[in-house]
């Protein structure tokens, strides 16, 4: 998550000696999910149920996270409610002082289940919408009736008095619905909406040609969001994750590698960001063999791109090196074929023109989705 605010006391933190302390942890409890979004950031090789961490291990991981200094835990997936021990995990997080955020697609979640989740002490619910209309949501998620179920879950969340964030991932087919997504968030009495352009890792990379918006669409979206932000100040917080391929500078991916957050996969691998597995040279330690603190401090994957020492000269000598941290390592891997290259989204990168050309070509691509799925039917799920 790039939304965690920079602590004001940053200047007091010694510049080098110890790695920083992470603020957030994304816990991907499972890859199982009833929906099939073509932009899903889960890897193409999805973890099956039989390799998922058991309850006991997750509880230990949450305790270790709290000890390490993590403040907020994002319970995600896949669909986290597919785990029947979710409430137990939430209760444990509350016990060890962690702030809990549930990231759900809201399909298959009954009012009774939500009540139990609320009683367990969840702090915040983030509900995804694949479209602002039933037609769009059902088409993008490839699930008939998904939209209605999501609306019902949203209403129930608010009835329980829980803060709600509407999460909308936008791409070529639904980007024009941004004003409607905002209306939908208001109608559901959400305090916050996330408008995230799909990012091209995992399934989204496979579907890039069907997802990539045109340049005009992206700039139109920026204007719409800006206007709405001003108009709805104090009513609805709008956090927009803007795509950087049409921009001048890259996004400060993860606010720096191994700097503020970490991600645990369903099978227990600890990643510096959810797409990090796309970098083949990295070896990820598993919570089954290492404590979270050990991984954070000592695993080669976390240290590979931490700080600024790893940077190419272009970034190292740049005044923005501690602003955008050289951009995204996974995007560098995908476009430049080198995870330690300057992010091609940066206009100073020699590959910037290639990225632009690729985006423009993809924006003309076919609209057919390759929906997210397990390659063989998952009987256990």
């Amino acid at each position, binding site marked *: 998550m790039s939304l965690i605010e920079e602590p004001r006391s940053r200047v007091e933190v010694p510049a080098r000696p110890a790695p920083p302390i992470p603020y957030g942890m994304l816990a991907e409890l499972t890859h199982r999910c009833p929906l099939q979004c073509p932009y899903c950031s889960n890897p193409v090789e999805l973890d099956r149920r039989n390799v998922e961490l058991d309850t006991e291990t997750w509880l230990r991981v949450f305790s270790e996270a709290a*000890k390490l200094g993590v403040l907020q835990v994002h319970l995600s997936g896949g669909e986290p409610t597919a785990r029947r021990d979710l409430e137990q995990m939430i209760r444990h997080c509350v016990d060890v002082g962690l702030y809990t955020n549930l990231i759900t697609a809201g399909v298959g979640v009954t009012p009774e289940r939500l009540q139990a989740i609320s009683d367990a002490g969840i702090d915040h619910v983030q509900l995804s919408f694949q479209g602002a209309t039933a037609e769009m949501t059902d088409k993008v998620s490839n699930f008939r009736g998904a939209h209605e179920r999501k609306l019902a879950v949203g209403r129930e969340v608010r009835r329980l008095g829980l803060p709600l964030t509407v999460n909308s991932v936008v791409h070529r087919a639904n980007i024009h619905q941004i004003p409607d997504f905002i209306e939908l968030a208001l109608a559901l009495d959400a305090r*916050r909406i*996330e408008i995230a352009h799909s990012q091209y890792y995992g399934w989204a990379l496979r579907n890039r040609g069907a997802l990539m918006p045109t340049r005009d669409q992206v700039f139109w979206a920026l204007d719409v969001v800006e206007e709405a932000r001003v108009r709805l100040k104090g009513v609805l917080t709008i956090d927009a994750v803007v795509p950087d391929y049409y921009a001048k500078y890259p996004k400060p991916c993860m606010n720096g590698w191994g700097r503020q957050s970490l991600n645990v996969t369903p099978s227990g691998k600890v990643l510096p960001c959810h797409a990090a597995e796309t970098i083949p040279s990295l070896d990820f330690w598993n919570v089954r063999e290492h404590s979270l603190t050990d991984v954070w401090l000592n695993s080669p994957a976390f240290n590979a791109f931490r700080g600024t020492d790893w940077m190419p000269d272009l970034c190292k000598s740049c005044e923005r090196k501690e602003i955008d941290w050289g951009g995204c390592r996974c995007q560098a891997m995908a476009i430049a074929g080198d995870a330690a290259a300057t992010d091609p989204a940066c206009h100073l990168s020699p590959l910037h023109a290639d990225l632009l050309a690729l985006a423009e070509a993809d924006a003309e691509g076919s609209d057919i989705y390759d929906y997210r799925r397990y390659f063989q039917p998952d009987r256990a799920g």
Partner: protein
Amino acid sequence: MTATLAATGVPKLARGVRLRHDEARGQWVLLAPERVLNPDPVAVEILKKVDGARSIDAIVDELATAFTVERTTVATDVDAFLSGLAEKGLIEVTSPVIGDAAS
């Protein structure tokens, strides 16, 4: 929006907002949806008294006594701080009096 909150109003943290001491970094933090805020020492003292029981008046009284500061100064600071939090939805103020502060 320099809305003034009714002094008799009783503020409490909204659901999904928590104040806690962060041992690892040795500081107080205010946790909210997708946000971690670092309140300064004065803000922490105010927040510790936002418990859904004390009125704004009571909070101001206690702080003025504890820090031997002019009451009007404290009242202005507390109002400005809490108004900001209310505007962001981080606190809710239940007001027993229907004042002119509705916004």
